[in-house]
């Protein structure tokens, strides 16, 4: 089985983002971009399928600027992906799910794929558009919020579940299809040191992105306002503290009438 897993470099979890000088976007300078969260889960899923289905290959792809795209692809190879393709595109193209799907779709035409995996949303933008857009552009079925993905060799179909508001759905899909995974229903592995060393030497195929059809233009990036201080209640007895708290909840916070 040929599996393509799409990954997006996102700022490391502890990163403190700052606006650029012109205030339009988060400044990437000095930010460490990593393979994280949803994408770690989808790489893990790809590798689990590879281990379950004989003679499978996992191909990692990323859309975006160097060197962050190369770094996450090497991280994917260190985890066990067999090969990697980097679609060279601007940060704006890569940031916007629809534009990223448009940049990637032509590259996928040249890559054999029975399954295209992605996280349900990118760890930074969280718009959740990419996988659905990619499915539409490729003209194949696409599904979001997927868990418990399996391959049924006899039927030559994937089976999986989708958790919805009302209950759990069970689905089947023919190949090829695009699947966006619910996060963290598997336990992503850690790359081993020898694999990290090996991944540094692995070749990464580079393709130029198709001319972007006008990505969305970021206008302003602001940090969330600092949280205002907590109010400490002065009291002599616990009863007094409770009375003051109830009064404040009613009169100031207006939590109840």
């Amino acid at each position, binding site marked *: 089985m040929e599996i393509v897993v799409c990954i997006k470099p996102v700022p490391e979890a502890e990163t403190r983002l700052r606006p650029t000088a012109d205030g339009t976007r988060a400044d990437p300078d000095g930010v460490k971009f990593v393979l994280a969260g949803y994408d770690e889960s989808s790489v893990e899923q790809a590798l689990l399928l590879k281990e379950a289905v004989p003679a499978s290959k996992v191909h990692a792809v990323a859309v975006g600027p160097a060197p962050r795209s190369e770094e996450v692809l*090497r991280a994917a190879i260190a985890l066990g992906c067999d090969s990697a393709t980097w679609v060279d595109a601007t940060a704006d193209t890569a940031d916007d799910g629809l534009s990223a799907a448009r940049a990637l779709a032509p590259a996928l035409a040249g890559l054999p794929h029975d399954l295209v995996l992605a996280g349900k949303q990118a760890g930074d933008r969280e718009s959740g558009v990419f996988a659905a857009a990619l499915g539409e552009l490729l003209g194949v079925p696409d599904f979001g919020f997927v868990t418990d993905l399996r391959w049924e060799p006899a039927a030559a179909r994937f089976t999986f579940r989708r958790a919805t508001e009302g209950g759990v759905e069970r689905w089947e899909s023919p190949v090829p299809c695009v699947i966006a995974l619910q996060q963290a229903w598997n336990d992503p592995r*850690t790359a081993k*040191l020898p694999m*990290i060393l090996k991944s540094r030497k692995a070749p990464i195929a580079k393709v130029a992105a198709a001319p972007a059809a006008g990505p969305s233009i970021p206008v302003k990036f602001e940090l969330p306002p600092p949280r205002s201080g907590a109010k400490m209640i002065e009291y002599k007895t616990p009863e007094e503290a409770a009375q003051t708290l109830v009064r404040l909840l009613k009169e100031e916070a207006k939590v109840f009438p």
Partner: protein
Amino acid sequence: MPDFSLTPEQESLRDLARKFARTEMAPHAQECDRTPRFPEEIYRKAYDLGLMNLNVPTEFGGSGLSLLDQCLIVEELAYGCAGMTTSIIANCLALEPIILGGSSEQKQRFLTPFCQEYHLASFALTEPTGGSDAGAIRTRARKDGDGYVLDGEKCFITNAPHASLYAVFATTDPAAKHRGISAFVVPRSAPGVTPGKDEEKMGHRASSTSTVRFDGVRVPAADRLGAEGEGFSVAMRTLDQTRTPIGALATGIAQAALDHAARYALKRQSFGKPIAEHQAIQIKLANMAQSVHAARLLTWHAAWTIDRGAKGSLESSIAKCFASDASFQVADEAIQTFGGYGYMKEYPVEKLLRDAKLTQIYEGANEIQRTVIARELLRGYA
């Protein structure tokens, strides 16, 4: 000019060690310290991820990392738990004599199994009657047919109760002092090898330390490393390699102490403001930060020097000595920053002081490091 930026490869190695230290080691550090407990399951995980035997050359299945790469990893591990780190890197110390002194047949025979399966090894030099004066060891190796018979006792040997292999230093001729010493590889299974019981230690309590007795242990000549009488040189060249990572280990402890102190200082209030706004605490933190930074750079410099093929005795002694003293001072100041809470076992900083202390003692006590530094230094003036 040297370049202080790390390569992407070095950053990935450091990230791996950091993640392992923070998710697998640190959560168990307090429990292993208090019980005390030798967390073999953590050491096995470290092995599985390739974080052990960092110095074994690739031709024998190891990752053959440069000393600088090793230091980056060791600092991160020590940030999670210094005691566990001592046990994790003890294999590097025990296998280095084979890497430096072994024939290719011996390397193949002894090193390869360590890269195929989890095993621990110990470096057995120190004896009850002396560690610093390594030329005066008393463990005897008597010639016997095509081999030797070993008799004697080693002490303070890291991982000894759990090791399957020992690098043992013994003398064939006590009168010849250091020129009488030879290095041997002795399997735990050899009749007459008896590790003692775990010592009760001040720090590094997740590590295991004990005596090992050798009573009439037969060792074939094929298991002697190098020529007869070359053992002292093998031991000293081994320590020239492994001293620098001890500087990195000490730096990891110091960085942890600084991080704890700075976070606490921003939260803890006195006289109506966070203690971080009192200048006395700011000066403390500033001094701690200088020490950590200097310790790290000296360690990197020593590793860089040795990676370029130089012996680096002076540089590695400076790095180990400075970083371990800095580590002890920074841990001390972290406790002071925490005030009374710093003295409580419920808080993490008192452990750091106990752990830092060992780095001033083992792999050559700091008095000995200073002797080496002064000797190398004065040579330039004589």
